């Protein structure tokens, strides 16, 4: 069985904590998602928080925007780590799908997350 990947949600203000809380309210509490905020942090501090949250194993880093301090810190942490992938534009549907498929390899998980996240954006 593949190793369970950690999901680290990295966002401005309290957004990451809110997304993780919402995902756990819907999907049930677990250890799959960890929130990281950039509040009052420089890039090095954000990266240190990501490192602590992601650990040494496989991880997918879900970032709010494809730019800015959260994105930079995530990209720096992921650089050279084969078992870590970055997904931007995090939303609740992609997180819920992620926690339901925890053993996918991070590269596959990241592709799946972008698909599921995009599918959830509609104008019915």
């Amino acid at each position: 069985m593949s190793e369970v990947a950690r999901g680290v949600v990295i966002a401005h203000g309290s957004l990451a904590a809110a997304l993780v809380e919402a995902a756990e309210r819907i999907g049930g509490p677990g250890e799959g998602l960890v929130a990281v905020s950039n509040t009052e942090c420089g890039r090095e501090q954000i990266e240190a928080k990501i490192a602590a949250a992601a650990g040494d194993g496989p991880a997918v880093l879900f970032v709010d925007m494809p730019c800015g301090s959260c994105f930079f810190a995530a990209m720096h942490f992921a650089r050279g780590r084969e078992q870590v992938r970055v997904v931007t534009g995090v939303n609740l549907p992609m997180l819920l799908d992620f926690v339901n498929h925890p053993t996918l390899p991070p590269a596959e998980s990241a592709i799946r997350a972008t698909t599921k996240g995009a599918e959830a954006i509609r104008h019915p």
Partner: protein
Amino acid sequence: MPVLSYRIDDRLVHGQVVIGWGKPMNIEFIALVDDAVAESEWEQELYRMGVPTEIALECCSLAQAAERTPGWRADARPSIVLTAEVATMVALCRAAPPVERVVLGGLHHKPGRTARLPYVYLTGEELQLLEALAAEGVKIEAQDLPTTPPVPLSALR
């Protein structure tokens, strides 16, 4: 159009710069002055991803910036000059005078720094550098966003 802001911010290009200041000041050009970024195509590409298409970004070293600053001042585009480090901005101000005002936009905690504001941490050496620059006639204030009141350097001691 002169350079509208000389900003020290260890996050360099990020939302406060591009949106918080960029929109109300109609910024069309950002000069990112950092020796390490100037040597890394990978980092430059990341920063370019954070800039909307209507804003041009130039990444250069301190030495290059000292040469280019007069051109930036003569450029018709409203601009911001960014550095991540206090020492870099102080050196640029001295190499390419005159700079009327420097803004401390975000300097976060590192070993040796102490909190002056929630978004400004400084070492004693950084404070001395800034005070020396202020004594040379440069106005130095902390201000993270246009909507927050500027805080004079004298209040950060």
